């Protein structure tokens, strides 16, 4: 299978959030700091990859009629494992993301990939699909977090980076981030629910603009090539 194509699909042309427009609840809810965004993105990436591999491994032995129920059980299993591990070893992330970790179960990305991709493809392809789709999701979360945090609070890397005693990474979510400008001048509204909807809306609009532009370019190029051919003839 062509990994390169899958990579491009996951990150750009078939990005789960920007193009397929699924899994938006968490995208808008938790992207208020880089710490949350990165944590959520990586959690989804891990769960998605594991589920993809398991689903495609058992795809031939599960009966057609109850496949969705089985997918849900497998997904819920992995989500609970990640939830328990986070509670035990990165409690700050667990409390910051709260109910959105168990809610990955109903995140349409995972069940959607299981149904649309893993059912028909080999374990290897599903593994890469999980990684790239997960990366695509993580990238969107990162962009949203960085934009909302920077414009809303004037910091970069909140919770994850601490610069008071030299640059270091904090896994307990205590770092204040790099201060770009004083939080008093930040558009605080961007860190509120309003900002979640608005940022995602604008991000998808930018994506649509870019996709349309590249499609038009291709069209023009094809047209030009065709005309050239006609002239030659």
């Amino acid at each position, binding site marked *: 299978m062509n990994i390169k194509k899958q990579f491009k699909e996951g990150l750009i042309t078939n990005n789960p959030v920007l193009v397929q*427009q*699924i*899994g*938006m*609840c*968490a995208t*808008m*809810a938790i992207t208020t700091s880089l710490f949350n965004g990165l944590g959520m993105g990586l959690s989804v990436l891990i769960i998605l990859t594991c589920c993809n591999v398991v689903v495609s491994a058992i795809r031939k032995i599960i009966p057609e009629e109850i496949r969705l*129920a089985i997918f*849900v*059980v497998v997904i*819920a*299993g992995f*989500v*609970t494992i990640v*939830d*328990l591990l986070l509670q035990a070893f990165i409690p700050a992330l667990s409390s910051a993301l*709260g*109910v959105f970790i*168990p*809610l990955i*179960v*109903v*995140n*349409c990305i995972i*069940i959607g990939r299981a149904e649309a991709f893993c059912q028909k493809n080999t374990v290897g392809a599903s593994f890469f699909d999980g990684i790239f789709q997960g990366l695509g999701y993580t990238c969107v979360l990162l962009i949203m977090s960085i934009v909302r945090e920077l414009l809303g609070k004037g910091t970069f890397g909140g919770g994850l980076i601490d610069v008071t005693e030299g640059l270091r990474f904090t896994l307990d979510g205590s770092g204040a981030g790099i201060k770009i400008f004083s939080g008093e001048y930040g558009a605080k*509204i961007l860190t*509120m*629910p*309003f*900002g*979640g*909807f*608005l940022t*995602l*809306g*604008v991000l*998808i*609009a*930018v994506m*649509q*603009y870019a996709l*349309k532009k590249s499609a038009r370019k291709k069209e023009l190029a094809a047209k030009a090539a065709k005309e050239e051919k006609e002239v030659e003839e």
Partner: protein
Amino acid sequence: MLFNIISISLGAILINNFIFSQFLGCCPFLGCSNKTDTAFGMGVAVIFVMGMASAICWLIDTYILVPLGLAFLETLAFILIIAALVQLVEMFLKKSVPSLYSALGIYLPLITTNCAVLGVVLLNVQNHYNFIESVVYGITGGIGFLLAIVLFASVRERVQFADYPECFEGFPICLVSAALVALAFMGFSGMQIF
């Protein structure tokens, strides 16, 4: 007790609205809000399932999972209960209340993956609500969802006639208008019963 219930209801409907302040149930919210009447159908179906799910999940959690020390199976158990419940409700309505079934039927299967439903049962556990509080939270959370989706659907019907940049076509303009409705809901955020 009564005070508690009023404060939970007011919180779930207005102040901590499931969609506009907690972001639970955004997928059906954005997907099913093209027309006011579909939005209304979806909202009613959600109230129904959220109330039932809160009650049943509370009972199962309190009397089966917690006493057996199986609290770690909560997420798995809840999602299965919700899926089974939705199926049961669907079959029951089909046989005994066909008129309601024909109105809600198409929305019911969609509700299984509505994160507001799983969200409400998980929040019930997290907030240590008792049985009555859980059911009230479930139902009023559903009412909050209904309010949000109906209001938003009527906004969206107007937006269709608006003149916006081409690249905002479809989802983006929908999200931007949702942002403005969320802004309106922020006005409730200072409300409190003393």
